[in-house]
């Protein structure tokens, strides 16, 4: 494998060809905020939290889908990037009904944690307060669309790790929704194997194990990564 040398935040970094900027940064101990990224599944570049500046490029690039190249000069922090990240978080909090105090994931939520870390102490934009469904038709799991940020992690683990293909996205723009099968109640899905991978993947409280109350829903992401490593790299023992 060819090695590429680049600079991230003024730090010299080496990474194998085919590594993303995000991967190279993390290997070098530089953290870049992410929401839709999940270790173990492919990236889609949707949340835009990981946008970075690249010297010589007028465009901001998502670190999760941009591959390293020789001589790249990457900046992961700037006033502009911090402002954009904060605004993106504000947009998410304003878009649906995120009530941390009443959420199963309170205290274990990536969106909540991201808000703290990016200094988002209030939302300036108009709350949209849409009326959204809670799907409690599945025997083991529930889906609360009020808390969904459409990161599509659940869709990706469902298709690419479990291979069930139950979860999908329907609708457009702000009307986009995570659906089960052909937009049926989850409990009626014939493809769902009740494996619970989507539950492990969800960054917020949108997907949860039934019976959980506020703050109780904790997740184990390492299981997903373990599965992928076992399958693709034949690493069975961690």
């Amino acid at each position, binding site marked *: 494998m060819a090695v590429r040398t680049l600079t991230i935040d003024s730090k010299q970094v080496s990474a194998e060809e085919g590594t993303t900027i995000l991967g190279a940064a993390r290997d070098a101990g530089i953290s870049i905020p992410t929401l839709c990224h999940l270790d173990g599944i492919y990236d889609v570049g949707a949340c835009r939290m990981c946008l970075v500046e690249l010297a010589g490029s007028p465009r901001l690039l998502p670190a999760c889908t941009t591959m390293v190249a020789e001589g790249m000069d990457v900046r992961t922090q700037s006033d502009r990037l911090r402002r954009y990240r904060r605004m993106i978080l504000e947009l998410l909090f304003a878009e649906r009904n995120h*009530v941390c105090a009443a*959420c199963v994931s309170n205290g274990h939520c990536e969106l*909540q944690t991201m808000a703290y870390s990016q200094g988002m102490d209030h939302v300036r934009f108009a*709350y949209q307060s849409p*009326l*959204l469904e809670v799907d409690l038709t599945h025997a083991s799991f529930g889906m609360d669309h*009020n808390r969904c940020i459409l990161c599509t992690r659940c869709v990706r683990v469902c298709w690419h790790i479990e291979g069930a293909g139950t979860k999908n996205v329907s609708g457009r723009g702000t009307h986009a929704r995570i659906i089960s099968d052909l937009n049926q109640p989850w409990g009626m899905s014939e493809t769902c194997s009740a494996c619970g991978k989507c539950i492990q993947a969800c960054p917020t409280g949108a997907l949860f194990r039934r019976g959980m109350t506020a*703050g109780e829903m904790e997740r184990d992401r390492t299981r997903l990564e373990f599965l992928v490593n076992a399958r693709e790299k034949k690493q069975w023992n961690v």
Partner: protein
Amino acid sequence: MERVRLATTWFGGCSGCHMSFLDLDEWIVDLTAKVDYVYGPLVDTKEYPEGVDVVLIEGAICNTEHVEMAHRIRQRTKTVVSFGDCAVTSNVVGMRNPLGGPEVVLNRAYVELADVNPGIPVAPGILPPLLDRAVPVHQVIPVDHFLPGCPPCPERIRMLLESLLGAGAAPTGRLIKFG
């Protein structure tokens, strides 16, 4: 040093933030050495006074009285703090917003679930009408500091008050904690 005039008030909220404030325990004694507590649910003052230095506002703006009061507070206060999640995000109080206007919740509470005398209470001049939506304080008046949390824990309240009492700028990043 001149004593700081501190007020607290309570709009659409559960009083949990004030409870958390009381959990400051003996530090409240230290605090009273530096401030005059001029208005709030803990003292018997009828009218929000002029010349307040710092106010902690708990709760979301839910009715017309809250709107009037918020404007009065802004005019008479130097530093306004949104105190707790309801004030910052409208939180649980705002959970009625997706349902449409307030009729839905009023009807549910006072008619559908009533055991005796079902009917939505109306008392013009006494009961202020609810707004279409419960909104965070900063959507009605400019707010200087935000202290989220449901409730904000005493340590964070103390951190903010200490900074406002002259011990440097508000440590914003460390004050954020929703839920």
